[in-house]
């Protein structure tokens, strides 16, 4: 099963608060691949809003994204685009 990993930096000033988290899980839920976010020793389900919120990732921090499944590469690309777009903030 294809597995793609990528480290993505948080570039929106407010970090991963509720609204970006909601947009993120709306995106990840569209993929069939399993998606995991890692920050430090924490590892969470990338499709779970409570999981993503738990990371409390601030501006400038890095999240490691792991996608496993047929659409893993596409998922990683779109997740990266969303992070880069600052979740529509600013």
């Amino acid at each position, binding site marked *: 099963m294809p597995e793609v990993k990528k480290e993505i930096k948080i570039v929106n000033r*407010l*970090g*991963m*608060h*509720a*609204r970006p988290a*909601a947009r993120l*899980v*709306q995106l990840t839920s569209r993929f069939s691949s399993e998606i995991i976010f890692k920050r430090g020793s924490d590892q969470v389900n990338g499709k779970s*809003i409570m999981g993503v*919120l738990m990371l*409390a*990732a*601030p*501006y*400038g*921090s890095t999240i490691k994204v792991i996608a496993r499944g047929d659409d893993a590469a596409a998922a990683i690309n779109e997740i990266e685009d969303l992070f880069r777009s600052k979740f529509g903030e600013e």
Partner: protein
Amino acid sequence: MKGLTVSQFYDSLRGKLELKLVAGEKGLKRKILISEINRPGLVLTGYVKFFANRRGQVLGKVEISYLRGLSPKLRKEKIHIFFQQKIPFCIIARNYIPPRELLSEADRIGIPIFRSPLVTTRLTNLCTIALEEMVAPSTSVIANLVEVYGVGVIINGQSGVGKSECTLSLVERGHRLVSDDYINVHLMEGTYLLGEGSELTRFHMEIRGLGIIDVRTLFGVGCVRQRKRIDLAVTLEPWDREKEYERLGLDEDYLSILGVEIPHIVLPVGPGRDLALLIEVAALNHRIKLMGYHSAQALDKQIKDRISQGRI
């Protein structure tokens, strides 16, 4: 109710206000357009400027004793001036005996005159409250109304989505049915909505496969309620995989009924979703918001605080 007639007013309040029609029967077709009540007072002296003539008039001790003190000729004159204004009806409080001239003039022009044993203030208050409800703008909504933990919840959604089953489930858990599939909604004091069912089908429901059931008889009088203020609207809809449903609860959606904005939640229906439980939680969440605690905002604030502590 648009264009309430004096006759309808009399029929529905004669018991409560202990009204007796004493003159002006031919004026029962007159319309009552506003709920306020007026004490004519100065108008009887001939001062008709600013006379609130569209209101129902209540004659108390002051008016009656003033009229009694006049000479018959003057009395007739003053009553004539009073009745020249288009007024819907008069009520004489404390069962005072009205002057003969008042009754004959009322009969001639066709202004209904009632007598009531109630004291003036109480009569005025009861009359205003009852009229307020009777002349309030109203509409009907095709939905269910249930009281859940004290919160009046409208449940709507297309036919067959499970509204009735969900309502029944709530009733079975001890909540109260107001109405199934039809709500008569009144705008109260221009600010809030009061819903009730139709008198004829009250507390009955139709459940597919079972037919018509009488909820009051089956579940008891504690499981029904005649009317309830509407606080929250829930729309049930078949789960649409393409659609994004609310995930946070930070943004509020509203449903406008008679110009009042009711907080609105869309609940997708899918296998394994216990709708009655979800509506109970929605009602509790609504209550706690009214008490000043917003779960989603509170958690978002905690997350933001944590993020700013960890800022690199």
